[in-house]
């Protein structure tokens, strides 16, 4: 039921230190699974439409594709209330620091979905001599799910969000930097 994971064997004299080490590392498996299911089924996206893909993101939130039926329909304008940042659109150089700021403002656990070709690697705007865009969202923030397309169909974004939900249920708390 409860596991205590520790790095090294602590000395019994230093109970205060032991408690400090142990407290954040106490895992309760079934509770964690429950929490993960909760997180996966109530993802609150950040309203972050940058360009064309934003229109398809809005279409996913509308009544035909209805993101709310998987619990992800509550778009939050404030990053501090959002779980997942769906980067929908091309990232310009001027927008880069803004994305970083917003990402930092989001509380953990947080996830990122790169929607559209532009956020994967620059998309249709990538060419030698492109000075204006950042070719890929993963150059600024780590990304969990990539949804290709230009723009991806709403069904594709929906599948991407479901994929993220799957990953969260497996225990993913946030994007991992490539080692």
């Amino acid at each position, binding site marked *: 039921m409860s596991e205590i994971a520790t790095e090294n064997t602590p000395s019994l004299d230093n109970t205060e230190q032991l408690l400090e080490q142990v407290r954040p590392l106490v895992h309760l498996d079934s509770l964690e699974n429950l929490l993960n299911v909760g997180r996966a089924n109530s993802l609150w996206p950040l309203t972050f439409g940058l360009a064309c893909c934003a229109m398809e993101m809005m279409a996913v939130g509308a009544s035909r594709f209805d993101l709310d039926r998987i619990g992800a329909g509550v778009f939050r304008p404030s990053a501090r209330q959002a779980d997942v940042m769906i980067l929908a659109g091309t990232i310009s150089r*001027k927008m*880069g*620091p803004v994305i970083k700021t917003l990402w930092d403002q989001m509380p953990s656990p947080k996830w990122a979905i790169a929607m559209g070709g532009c956020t994967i690697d620059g998309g249709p705007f990538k060419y030698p001599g492109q*000075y204006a865009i950042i070719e890929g969202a993963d*150059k600024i923030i780590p990304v969990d799910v990539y949804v290709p397309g230009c723009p991806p169909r709403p069904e594709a974004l929906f599948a991407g969000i479901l994929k993220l939900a799957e990953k969260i249920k497996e225990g993913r708390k946030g994007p991992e930097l490539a080692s």
Partner: protein
Amino acid sequence: MSEVSSDLALAGVQSSTDIDFDERGLQHRHEALAGDMPVVAGAFRAAGYCLEHITCLDLRQVEEVAGFRVDYQFNRIGSPVDRHVVQVKVGETETATSIASVYPGADWYEREVFDMHGVLVDGHPNLKRLLMPEDYRGYPLRKDFLDEDPERHQMSGVVVEAEAAQEDVADGEDGA
């Protein structure tokens, strides 16, 4: 001939040509000096014409001279269409003159000309970059523009250490 032709001649326009609208979408081309532009713009304004846009051309590819040409496009609102292009040659070290006092809409167009081509505009109320970040170096639409900034894929003013470190590692592995 257009109804404004005589006013333009008085305003100091250097030469005027009529163009076939069906071929080009324009009706008149004029050449003017940068200093005369406010008066020329005033003539159009008095005749009720609007400023459709201002754009800039790098002359290196067109005439193989160093310098720029700023094109101002005026048109009547409504029909019939009477489109005039006034072309102003600006040498490499010369400046254009702002017509923002005549047409407030020229403000942003002139800022864009400065931002993209580096042509300074005299008398502009707020000449700073419009599209690129304020700390950007270089003028993108110039023909010889090479974005040599090594942090090309980074955002303005911010260096992300992790990626820089990864690039160093990659360079080391390649033996570069």
